[in-house]
């Protein structure tokens, strides 16, 4: 082409100038481990299921969630949500209501009748799962999804373990429990209820099982020696809760003391209020600060009129009078003061901890029991090959969520064992810490709260105390998530590059690769603005190696 007047050269593009050569540091997209995921005992990918929920794609969110935990409607009610304690948003205003959104998804799935995908193929391997609490049920689920045949045995008449016989209905309505159990069973689980196994090794042998998952929980209430008259009514909290759950509540009178400071003590005291006790008094030898019970549980109990005696022990119980001794704390040590007082009481409920009935492994060669718990290795396997254990029977924190996490982990290990492989632990990403976030970009948004049953109705009924989020505020709450350490496609990197060296990829095409942007290193000068302005800390700046 003939250049126009006074122009001697064609105009060229600056793309001839590869400014990437100036770079000494390069930005790279990373995935960091969000603190919620890190804290979740069940190993849920919370950030990821919230990501789907944010877009209103509740089914994708639910499916992502149940990849790790098959009991979202249950966990959305009874989990003590360590995820929320770890949530980065707490440093901004308040933690994301993860538990409330989980429950919303769980309830939504039940209402819509969403089912689990059937296993791709049957492996022909058979696994015995003993105990149908959160751990046993979750193990059955994960094993079935991998195509192994599962026989689920429980000594009780109905499945659910502590979720049915321990946790009061005002925290977990039984229809929710039934629905989530049914959905697992629909994967094709052989269920045997009302059957107690006395010798696990013999059972494995006789049933020709390829592997066993032991998850019988901790069902025996711990007792302590309390001098008591013949007429004194003493029972343990687990029996109380079990009888109430079975529809046969004991008659304990109007003034009942509960001895202990754990969540079970709170459950017992709150249950007693509902059974008509005017005085439900928790007696605990330390202070609220040392209490193992969750702070919310204590607050709810007090709100419902439960009373508490701190720094107090029970000495004796005779003739409708409880003799209490004041104590003081020296460090963790409880020191008697010799100061006594009396409390009129019709009954005493002991909530002093729980033990596992492990008589079924007494004859199992290789299964070691220490301090009342079954010893397991990193893969949840006992010393006996093919016998795995989890939930409350193994050492560690005893919560339903931990039990679910054990089951997932064990199921993975059992699957590897059945295939003759060894389990390689998945790589752990470094933590997405708060200081990596650029919180400027997040909109201010108040935490959405679940409605609660008015106090009057909590005294007379076992109606559920905590209500659900509606769809609109569940969506809002999900969108409060900061997506720590994981790209959520805000386009900032694409927008803020002064060199226009970030490409925005076609969403559909790039979804599979999980990346929506790419750096053009031919032109990126490594200024780091994208790193600084990424809201969620999903870009690292790393030195160039020359």
């Amino acid at each position, binding site marked *: 082409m003939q250049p126009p007047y006074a122009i001697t050269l064609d105009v060229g593009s600056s793309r001839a100038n590869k400014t990437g050569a100036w770079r000494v540091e390069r930005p790279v997209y990373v995935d960091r481990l969000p603190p919620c995921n890190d804290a979740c005992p069940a190993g849920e990918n919370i950030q990821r299921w919230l990501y789907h929920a944010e877009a209103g794609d509740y089914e994708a969110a639910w499916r992502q969630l149940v990849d790790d935990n098959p009991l979202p409607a249950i966990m959305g009610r009874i989990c003590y949500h360590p995820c929320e304690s770890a949530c980065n948003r707490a440093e901004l205003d308040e933690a994301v209501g993860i538990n409330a959104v989980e429950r919303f998804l769980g309830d939504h799935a039940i209402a819509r009748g969403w089912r689990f995908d059937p296993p791709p193929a049957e492996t022909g391997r058979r696994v015995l799962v003993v105990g149908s609490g959160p751990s046993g049920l979750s193990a059955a689920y994960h094993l079935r999804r991998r195509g192994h045949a599962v026989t689920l045995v429980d000594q009780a008449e109905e499945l659910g373990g502590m979720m049915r016989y321990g946790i009061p209905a005002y925290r977990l309505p039984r229809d929710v429990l039934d629905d989530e159990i049914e959905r697992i069973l629909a994967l094709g689980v052989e269920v045997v209820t009302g059957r107690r196994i006395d010798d696990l090794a013999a059972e494995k042998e006789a049933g020709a099982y390829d592997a066993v998952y032991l998850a019988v929980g901790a069902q025996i209430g711990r007792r302590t020696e309390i001098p008591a008259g013949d007429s004194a009514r003493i029972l343990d909290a687990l029996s109380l809760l079990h009888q109430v759950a079975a529809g046969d509540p004991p008659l304990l009178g109007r003034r009942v003391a509960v001895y202990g400071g754990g969540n079970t003590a709170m459950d017992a005291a709150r249950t007693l209020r509902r059974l008509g006790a005017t005085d439900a008094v928790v007696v605990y030898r330390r202070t609220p600060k040392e209490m193992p019970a969750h702070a919310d549980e204590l607050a709810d109990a007090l709100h419902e009129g439960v009373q508490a005696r701190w720094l107090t022990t029970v000495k004796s119980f005779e003739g409708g009078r409880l003799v209490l001794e004041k104590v003081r704390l020296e460090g963790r040590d409880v020191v008697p003061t010799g100061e006594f007082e009396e409390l009129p009481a019709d009954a005493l409920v002991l909530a002093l901890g729980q033990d596992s009935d492990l008589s079924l492994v007494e004859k199992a060669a290789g299964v070691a029991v220490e301090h009342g718990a079954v010893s397991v290795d990193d893969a949840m396997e006992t010393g006996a090959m093919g016998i795995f254990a989890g939930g409350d029977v193994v050492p560690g924190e005893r919560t339903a969520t931990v039990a679910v996490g054990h089951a997932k982990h064990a199921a993975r290990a059992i699957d590897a064992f059945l295939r003759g492989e060894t389990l390689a632990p998945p790589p752990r990403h470094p933590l997405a810490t708060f200081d990596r976030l650029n919180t400027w970009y997040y909109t201010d948004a108040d935490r959405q709260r679940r409605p609660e049953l008015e106090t009057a109705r909590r005294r007379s009924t076992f109606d559920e105390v905590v209500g659900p989020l509606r769809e*609109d505020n569940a969506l809002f709450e999900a969108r409060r998530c900061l997506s720590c350490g994981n790209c959520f*496609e805000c386009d900032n990197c694409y927008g803020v590059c002064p060199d226009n060296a970030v490409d925005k990829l076609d969403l559909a095409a790039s979804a599979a690769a999980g990346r929506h942007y790419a750096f053009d290193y031919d032109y990126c000068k490594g200024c780091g603005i994208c790193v600084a302005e990424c809201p969620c800390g999903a870009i690292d700046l790393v030195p160039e190696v020359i």
Partner: protein
Amino acid sequence: MTPTPIRFYQVGSFAVGNRLLEEELRTVQSDPRRANSLDRGHRACQGCGEALGARYALDAAVRATGGDLVAINATGCLEVFSTPFPESSWRVPWLHSLFGNTPAVASGVAAALRVKGRSNVRVVAQAGDGGTVDIGFGALSGMFERNDDVLFICYDNEAYMNTGVQRSGATPPAARTATTEAVGPEPGNPFGQGKDLPRIALAHGIGYVATATVADLHDLEAKVIKAMARHGARYLHVLVPCPLGWGSQSRDTIRLARLAAESGLFPVFEAEDGIVTSVRKIRHKVPVEDYLVLQRRFAHLFKPERRDEVIAHLQALADENITRYGLVAPEEVEV
């Protein structure tokens, strides 16, 4: 329970884009088909705010005009780093003449287009702060006075950067430049000098005057688009941090622009037909010190000893802006 408004998008109103946002609520910059008026391969420093601001503004202008646009550019970094002949980063029709005559050239181009019956083609003039408030000032004032159909954009990096960081009429007090050294009893640029061009433009009575920064893209684009919907002389003044001249980290460019606005030192507002019609409220007020400490041009305020009285003087200027423009919502004003 009060119903919760559902229109909440996590980062919707602050980030560049957002998958949850309807397309039309996203910025021009989030569009994979944006014009990229200033293409990759330009020679601006790492983290150059001016390169960023120019692409932000011109891409929005291209969207607003459907691409019927010609850009007139003053001498300065933006011209030098974008167009070392024969290579150019511009993907819009673009014209460069001199350092001081950009408003006059733009007026001429607008007049020529009108004469040729092509008034659908719109004119945008752009210059640095030196080209605007100093050497181009006379021509600019004439362009305003005649109400020529030009949007004039000043990319204010607060000094003559292209020639080695000399002071301009837009350099802030106390700042060190090559011509205002940090020596003597009153180091840096003296207080009480300089020009406030947005207010001077307002005084000309032109139809549209606005300020913006590279830290608030939604705001900047909305102003360009609004300006392009009008005719006559219009003025947009954009704060564009310069890592080289300010002695800041290249990654802090947007952060500095944000702090300039959040501290009140750089008021972000919009005026139509001579009246200030909207101000961008401060979201999280910060002391000017948060802004100053990140820049070597203010290092002498902190080392070898703190110059509290100078910092307080700069704070007073910020507070004056806050009062003049009402940058803080009434309930947040400290008493």
